[in-house]
């Protein structure tokens, strides 16, 4: 029986296990939307802006390890997806972005709402397609999901002209894929694994750098066994939080520009770094020429192009992390590293990175810590970008696998709210906290309507300091305290929430924090807390730009605690 392109697309999505689509319609996807009622098993979430659709699909993907699907119309719909696609690409999240395109006869004629979205997205997708023949559609969807979800995951865009959605053909979903240029190396080379194990067995001052690859590979158990067996302390990249229990004795927390003193000192003084599923991002390594000067480096990653890209590596192991760690666990010896671990404990004591200073003001560190206390870590935390993100990364202890969802690479402000929607829809049984800044929140604030329309019970905590906080901190520290255009006039967020039919409270004082968090968690639906925090609170430690990881600075205990210490 012949089916239309739109029907073929829906049935192909169902074959790929898709349950949810985030999107917003327009002329070039009308034939697709017209067929949605025939497929009630596909839940469509109507967002208010395409950027919201892309971030929601991204959040869904990170939370579920399945490709998130977003849909937009041609032209402005497609270009509005771009930020979200670029974000998923930088953080290796599987995504299928489906865009309508103008009808084939007018492609290239600068038709109404025509944009070359495949051209635009070449550098920010793992692959993309313009489907010009309906007979190619099912095969294209099959390939797209395979590419998006295997190897190093990433976004794939499928651009479908309106008339292809309407054209009919026989529907056969292929069972085989023929992609001669696409190879996934899943198992690490045994000789490389042996070499890596030898270095690990010989190391006296080893440190693991744990990246998001461990989470993508869902290698939590293998990773824990690995770290524990050889007593290897674990520093995290931002996106590596949630790959290892944050309350474990071997856990050093986050390294990098705003990493803990202990993690940064351990990395800089290591004789061996075991970098797992990370890409030596400049925010993690700081100055690469002075990075870990005495360390040999083992780099385990599924993407061969990451090896040696930013930092020279001694032993590369290319493969899926779960498979590589399983093999490595058989090769490594039990070690204790007593001296090294006691040196690390010394740094942990010496650098009070996790301590919260004494203050009558409402401090974001305290708020985040209280959310941790109230949830006991049993929540998924989705963050915005900037200070709120760093506070959330540092003052919540991520004990639950994959419980920290944040945009690390592209780092677009406004990620938090739509991504939290996607996370909650993907994992409805989980408590989802959305930690926002007052600046970023206003970049995708329109999704409050989606939250109400679709009854998505996310708990929103705005760290409202009346500034673009991270930029203000940089102006304070590196631009002579000249606060150029970082002060924000803000609307009344509680009234905004009310207008969207969402309950909320404003918190000005420390003693109101715990009751507000409790109220949010007891409330059955979405809830917003507007925390009016100390406006000029900084995130410390900080490694000044261009400096080495060891050159971080932070207030001393005396400064944190005054005379009492």
């Amino acid at each position, binding site marked *: 029986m012949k089916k239309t392109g739109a029907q073929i697309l829906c049935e192909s999505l169902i074959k790929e296990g898709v349950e949810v689509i985030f999107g917003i319609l327009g002329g070039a996807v009308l034939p697709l939307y017209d067929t949605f009622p025939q497929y009630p098993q596909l839940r469509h979430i109507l967002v208010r802006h395409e950027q919201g659709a892309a971030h929601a699909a991204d959040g869904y993907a990170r939370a579920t390890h399945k490709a998130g699907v977003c849909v937009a119309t041609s032209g402005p719909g497609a270009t509005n997806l771009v930020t979200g696609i670029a974000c998923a690409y930088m953080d290796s999240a599987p995504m299928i972005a489906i865009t309508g395109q103008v009808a084939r006869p007018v492609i290239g004629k600068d038709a109404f709402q025509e944009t070359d979205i*495949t*051209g635009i997205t*070449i*550098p920010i997708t*793992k*692959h993309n397609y*313009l489907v010009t023949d309906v007979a190619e559609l099912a095969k294209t969807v099959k390939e797209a999901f395979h*590419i998006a979800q295997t190897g190093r995951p990433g976004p794939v865009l499928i651009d479908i002209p309106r008339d292809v959605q309407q054209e009919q053909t026989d529907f056969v979903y292929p069972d085989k894929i023929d*992609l*001669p*240029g*696409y190879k996934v190396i899943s198992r690490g080379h045994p000789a490389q694994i042996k070499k890596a194990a030898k270095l690990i067995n010989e190391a006296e001052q080893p440190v693991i750098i744990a990246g998001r690859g461990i989470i993508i590979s869902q290698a939590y158990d293998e990773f824990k066994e690995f770290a524990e067996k050889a007593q290897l302390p674990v520093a995290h990249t931002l996106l590596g939080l949630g790959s290892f229990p944050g309350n474990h004795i071997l856990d050093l927390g986050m390294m990098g520009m705003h990493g803990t003193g202990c993690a940064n000192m351990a990395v800089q003084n290591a004789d061996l770094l075991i970098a797992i599923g990370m890409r030596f991002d400049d925010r993690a390594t700081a100055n690469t020429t002075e990075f870990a000067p005495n360390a040999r480096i083992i780099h385990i990653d599924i*993407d*061969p*192009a990451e*090896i*040696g*890209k930013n930092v020279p590596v001694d032993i590369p192991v290319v493969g899926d992390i779960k498979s590589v760690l399983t093999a490595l666990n058989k090769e490594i010896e039990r070690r204790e590293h007593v001296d090294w671990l006691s040196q690390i404990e010394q740094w942990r004591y010496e650098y009070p990175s996790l301590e919260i200073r004494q203050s009558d003001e409402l401090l974001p560190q305290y708020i985040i810590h209280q959310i941790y206390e109230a949830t006991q870590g049993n929540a998924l935390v989705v963050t915005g970008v900037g200070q709120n993100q760093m506070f959330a990364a540092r003052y919540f202890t991520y004990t639950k696998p994959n419980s920290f969802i944040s945009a690390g690479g592209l780092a677009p402000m406004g990620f938090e709210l739509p991504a939290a929607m996607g996370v909650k829809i993907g994992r409805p049984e989980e408590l989802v906290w959305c930690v926002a800044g007052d600046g970023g929140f206003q970049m995708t604030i329109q999704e409050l309507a989606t939250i109400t329309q679709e009854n998505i019970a996310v708990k929103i905590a705005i760290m409202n300091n009346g500034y673009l906080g991270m930029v203000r901190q940089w102006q304070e520290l590196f631009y002579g305290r000249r606060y150029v255009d970082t002060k924000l006039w803000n609307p009344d967020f509680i009234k905004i929430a009310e207008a969207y039919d969402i309950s909320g409270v404003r918190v000005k004082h420390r003693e109101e924090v715990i009751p507000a968090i409790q109220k949010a968690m007891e409330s059955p639906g979405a809830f917003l807390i507007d925390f009016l925090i100390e406006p000029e609170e900084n995130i410390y430690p900080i490694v000044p730009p261009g400096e080495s990881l060891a050159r971080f600075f932070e207030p001393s205990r005396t400064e944190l605690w005054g005379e009492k210490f």
Partner: protein
Amino acid sequence: MTDTKHTLVALVEDKPGVLNRVASLFRRRSFNIESLAVGGSEHPGLSRMTIVAIGDSAQVEQVRKQLEKLINVVKVSDITEEDMVTRELALIKVKATASTRSEIMQIVNIFRANIVDVSPGSLTVEVTGDEGKVNSLLGLLRDFGVKEVSRTGRIALTRGSSS
């Protein structure tokens, strides 16, 4: 490390937009292409690209791996260190008068090049060879006045029976 010329040979799927993907990758990662030649290969549906890129070995290895990540790129080899045959084709339109024509034709003969078009004021020369040969001929013809040049860029295969 020093910048040198590297010859990359890529087998790519013969599909729309592949050249754009390859060129876009060089631009995005700030790699320099000196020349890029593309045409059919021995495999139906696959084209062979010869790319001459300038950079140090680590940069070129990075671009090679990035190219391999493109879904439409089947295989990429850096054959710079290998024994290879390289050729380039150039068409050179040179000013020629009754008094210079025979001298030009002598030079062309020495280079085993061909005259492919003759007009009252010019000759068009076709030359095949490695870049050195093409550059030498071009240098000699410049004295007569070169009006137009079109070069294909390098194409290359490794010597011997291995593929």
